[in-house]
């Protein structure tokens, strides 16, 4: 380790004596510390992951065999709707914001996030919003059952829970926008001297672009659901053809939000994988600038492909062609990223600790999700795939084995830095293999189900779909169980274990690894001097 970083650490230690972490419950309520808030986000996300997972278990249990055995169709639809809302807004997005909070200041040499009080508020809206959202399940009319996409006119048939759901979505949007503003201000304004934009770790880059997407599209979602609310309660006719509106107009506005939203849920994972693979390949990231440009291109393209989610609504031919071509173009920058990751591994010196295993699984399984995405882009074939289990398989490959595996890679990768302890590597590997096998048993057969003609969002199905559904359900239960092991591993690591070194991983590069493990409560109160040897994997001069 360079003398410089030792100096930084010494300084931080001295400073930490002045004010370390305060004690008690109110610490967490009033905290403005990016690490505390990061922890809050991550713990909340894990909780929501388990809640949303529980709903998935109900879904898979009902679909275990044909016929209705456990729940009635109304409740089934509430489960599919809530599962999506909880996983998207409660599990995946907060997990990424939590990682951003913990890591971005430490990766760019900043003392904290740019707007610490607002950072607190971004988090503390979430528990209230989710209390409101989840409470609708206990209302006499039940929760929302029209799918997380809330297409009218169906969503307008929702009972008393409707306004609560809309307002919960507003709150989640406010939280996301404030979190994103904070991330952008931190990255653009808080970098240590010498941490130029093109020296930033790729994770920071992907979050910068993600934050831009969030600020651009969350307000559009707010607008769309506001129109739903006024159509339902205040006589407007946005989505009613009799009044000159159009139900399909909602889908256009929603997916203008929705497509960037799916990239919001994957770009930070791209960043994580771009940190993890070079570390365990002990080799700099291949094509750093290409990675940055590819991420930016994907983000920009995400604004002009929204209608590929709705090819069957009957758009004019010209529109269908445009959205098909634009969607296919996305394969090019995405391909560049995949090729760059494989090239990073090529002639590296790889080891296979749990974070690397998740990253490798990510590359393969996300690519499979990408392939099915490309297939879905071909409109004539999409007329068959659309709204079937093929689509369900597709987006679970990109979101579970993509986003969630990315988050898990990140957690195993940085957990020693957060807690100061190594997690149990043996259990970590068991968790990985258990997850990666079960997740494929869970989702791969769903491709077949979709192709064979099983629509999404049905609680019961024709008997020819029975075998694959049973296999899928078994995979689902196994995958669900594996995540309890994950929660245990995290809990165990937080409690103690083998002490981690500052660098933790032999091949790790970047400012966060110059800090001791666990990272002190306050870090980089004096900006560090950036030494090329500490710059993350993009730098090739060394």
């Amino acid at each position, binding site marked *: 380790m360079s003398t410089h970083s030792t100096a930084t650490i010494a300084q931080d230690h001295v400073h930490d004596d002045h004010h370390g972490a305060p004690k008690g419950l109110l610490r967490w309520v*009033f905290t403005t510390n990016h690490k505390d808030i990061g922890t809050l986000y991550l713990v909340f996300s894990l909780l929501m992951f388990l809640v949303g997972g529980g709903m998935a278990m109900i879904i898979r249990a009902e679909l275990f065999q044909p016929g209705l055995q456990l729940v009635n169709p109304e409740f089934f639809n509430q489960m599919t709707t809530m599962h999506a809302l909880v996983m998207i807004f409660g599990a995946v997005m907060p997990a990424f914001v939590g990682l951003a909070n913990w890591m971005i200041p430490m990766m760019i040499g900043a003392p904290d996030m*740019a707007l610490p009080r607002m950072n*607190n508020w971004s988090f503390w809206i979430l528990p209230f919003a989710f209390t409101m959202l989840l409470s609708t399940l206990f209302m006499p009319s039940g929760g929302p059952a029209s799918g997380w996409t809330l297409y009218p006119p169906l969503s307008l048939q929702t009972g008393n829970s409707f306004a609560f759901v809309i307002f919960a979505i507003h709150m989640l949007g406010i939280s996301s926008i404030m979190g994103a503003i904070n991330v952008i201000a931190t990255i653009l304004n808080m970098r240590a001297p010498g941490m130029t934009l093109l020296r930033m770790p790729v994770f920071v880059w992907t979050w910068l672009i993600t934050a831009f997407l969030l600020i*651009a599209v969350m307000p559009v979602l707010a607008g769309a659901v506001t129109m739903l609310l006024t159509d339902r309660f205040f006589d407007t006719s946005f989505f009613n*053809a009799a009044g000159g*509106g*159009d139900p399909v107009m909602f889908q256009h506005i929603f997916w203008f939000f929705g497509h960037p939203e799916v990239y919001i849920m994957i770009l930070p994972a791209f960043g994580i994988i771009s940190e993890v693979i070079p570390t365990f390949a002990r080799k700099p990231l291949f094509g750093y600038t290409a990675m940055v440009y590819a991420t930016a291109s994907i983000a920009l393209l995400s604004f002009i492909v929204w209608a590929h989610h709705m090819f069957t609504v009957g758009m004019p031919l010209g529109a269908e062609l445009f959205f098909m071509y634009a969607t296919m173009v996305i394969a090019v920058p995405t391909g560049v990223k995949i090729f760059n990751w494989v090239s990073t591994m090529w002639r590296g010196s790889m080891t296979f600790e749990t974070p690397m295993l998740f990253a490798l699984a990510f590359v393969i399984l996300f690519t499979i999700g990408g392939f099915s995405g490309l297939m879905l882009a071909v409109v004539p074939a999409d007329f068959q795939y659309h709204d079937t289990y093929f689509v369900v398989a597709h987006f679970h490959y990109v979101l579970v084995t993509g986003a969630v595996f990315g988050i898990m890679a990140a957690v195993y990768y940085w957990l020693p830095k957060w807690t100061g302890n190594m997690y149990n590597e043996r259990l970590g590997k068991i968790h990985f293999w258990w997850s990666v096998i079960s997740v494929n048993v869970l989702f791969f057969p769903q491709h077949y189900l979709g192709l064979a003609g099983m629509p999404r969002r049905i609680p019961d199905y024709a008997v020819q779909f029975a075998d694959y559904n049973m296999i899928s359900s078994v995979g689902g239960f196994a995958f669900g169980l594996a995540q309890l092991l994950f929660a245990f591993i995290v809990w165990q690591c937080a409690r103690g274990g083998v002490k981690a070194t500052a660098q933790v991983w032999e091949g790790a590069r970047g400012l966060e690894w110059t800090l001791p493990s666990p990272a002190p409560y306050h870090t980089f109160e004096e900006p560090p001097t950036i030494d090329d040897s500490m710059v993350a994997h993009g730098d090739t001069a060394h």
Partner: protein
Amino acid sequence: MTHADTHNPDRYFIPHNAPWPIVGSIGMTALLAGAAMAMNGSASGKVTMLTGVAFIIVMLFGWFGQVVRESVGGYYNSQVDTSFRMGMLWFIFSEVMFFGAFFGALFYARVFVVPWLGGEGHGVMTNALLWQGFDPVWPTNGPAAIGGNFDTVPAFGVPLVNTLILLTSGLTVTMAHWALKNAQRRALVLWLAATVTLGFLFVYLQAEEYIHAYQELGLTLGSGIYGSTFFMLTGFHGMHVTLGAIMLTVIMFRAAKGHFTDANHFGFEGVAWYWHFVDVVWLGLFVFVYVV
């Protein structure tokens, strides 16, 4: 505030112990849950909403009060100032996108949906089988004439006056900025007072126009797609003008107290940016909602 004691002006100011966000969360939840209850016809909805509003007001005074004290106390260096500026600019960008959703609805309905319902291009069969006889002329309340007959608000009456009012207010707020930069506190407060007056005058005229539309023109929120887009766009804009005018009022009192210097006045600038944003949105509204 342990940090205050050991504060070092060369360092980025990191506040500790923020009690206001949680108050804001409670307020926001009560306000929205109360609104939802009211929409569902619950009698306790309004009380819950008002409780929420009370919490939010307390939060705003507490939070901004603390920030003002820190700012006046010199805790914020130029880097903190930059963070605030970025925060405000990106917030305004998010507001632009929010209005974008409603402008998008207006354009989509007007350019695509209404002609389709009238049988143009893609909508031949829609018109032939479902809406025969519908004349797709904007403004419209749709083939079923939802909400009954209505007249539109002529662009070159009150809306034109309101346009001039907002444009003038953009000018006066710039004059205020100019006065601030020249350290003329009296002129600053006067120009701000003029801006606030114009802002509230706009809101007053807008309210008069709404009453006129509802009572005499038959134009309501329920007047099909025209009424929906008209009132949602102008209504959200009016709410933003009201908010902007309140913010300007606060800034005016702060200016009178001497909170701003020619070098350090982000609070003023942030609100001025917001005011210009509201102004620009109105120009879009005037052109696309009233004139075209």
